[in-house]
């Protein structure tokens, strides 16, 4: 049987996956980089490999993780975390239940109800697709006429867009905050500056370190309590009344956060995967000595 390893799965090899491979190499752990477009699943899972799921498409990443999980493998992140993070409505609902501060939001299932929801939140509002990233298809809507147009357009974009997620617009102080959590521990944070109302490093913009102060740590730990992902990137707004959690990402891109913070984020993720690998091996040994049983 081959030696247990970290298997970094991808569909498009971004800078992040290369950094993860380099970090694995530096740490001396056995690893592979695997393009899942070459796979046919399900496949037999041997040993105690840790699967670091980094496919660029949310649905592909989720399904790969789901199949591996049900075959008994340990994935980073777990599929149930991907399900939550990949769906803004699920994320917001969980944050709401835990009373974690976030921008006001409403969900509607028809054009008319979407207009009513926007009016109830108060203009301007932001229409967001429930699934999507990189600031794609976000619309800042200033009045009922604009809302009507956006709702009509979305109505024609297919079923995924007929679930209307509408969020209160938060006036930012020129930046938002992106913080990383690895293995439950907040590791670093950056400010993302932009002249545009959308601050996303995938769309350009300046970054600098943001201190991991008590307030930020506290809200990050609260987020992790209810969305206990192995590796998360949490986006927050800083407002006069404190921090608001905007989004929680499970497939974080981090290339622009390393220089400003000096933090080896890829190294942190690989260290976590290595510890999971060791833990799995330990469990296997314990199982071996405690009597008959099958390891995955």
């Amino acid at each position, binding site marked *: 049987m081959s030696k247990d390893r970290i298997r970094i799965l991808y569909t498009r090899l971004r800078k992040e996956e290369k950094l993860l491979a380099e970090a694995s190499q530096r740490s001396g752990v056995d690893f592979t980089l695997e393009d899942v477009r070459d796979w046919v699943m399900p496949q037999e899972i041997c040993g105690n490999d840790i699967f670091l799921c980094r496919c660029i498409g949310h*649905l592909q990443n989720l399904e790969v993780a789901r199949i591996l999980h049900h075959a008994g493998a340990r994935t980073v992140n777990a599929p149930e975390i991907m399900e939550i993070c990949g769906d803004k409505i699920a994320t917001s609902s969980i944050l709401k239940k835990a009373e974690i501060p976030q921008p006001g939001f409403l969900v509607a299932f028809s054009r008319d109800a979407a207009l009513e929801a926007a009016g109830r939140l108060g203009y301007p509002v932001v229409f967001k697709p429930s*699934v999507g990233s990189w600031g794609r298809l976000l619309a800042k809507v200033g009045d009922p006429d604009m809302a009507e147009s956006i709702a009509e357009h979305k109505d024609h974009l297919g079923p995924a867009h007929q679930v209307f997620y509408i969020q209160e617009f938060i006036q930012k102080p020129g930046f938002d905050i992106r913080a990383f959590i690895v293995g439950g521990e907040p590791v670093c944070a950056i400010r993302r500056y932009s002249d545009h109302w959308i601050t996303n490093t995938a769309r350009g913009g300046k970054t600098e370190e943001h201190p991991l102060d008590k307030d930020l740590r506290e809200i990050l730990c609260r987020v992790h309590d209810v969305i206990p992902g192995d590796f998360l990137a949490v986006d927050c707004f800083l407002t006069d009344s404190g921090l608001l959690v905007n989004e929680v990402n499970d497939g974080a891109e981090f290339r622009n956060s390393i220089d400003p913070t000096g933090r080896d984020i890829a190294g942190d993720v690989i260290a976590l995967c290595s510890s999971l690998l060791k833990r799995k091996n330990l469990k296997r040994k314990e199982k071996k000595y405690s009597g008959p049983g099958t390891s995955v």
Partner: protein
Amino acid sequence: MKEQAICVVCECAIDFAPGTLKGEILVCPECGTELEVVCTTPPGLAEAPQVEEDWGE
């Protein structure tokens, strides 16, 4: 000698940096097309897939 592949759109020769891996995206310096490395030995490129609705973080 540097390994090279040909841009599938404009046929410009593109250098493969050492350590180039399958699945990486290169941008053609001549025509700006995003190209995906589909093979490293021998070097091969294809037009990169368009961004899908669920791509991202």
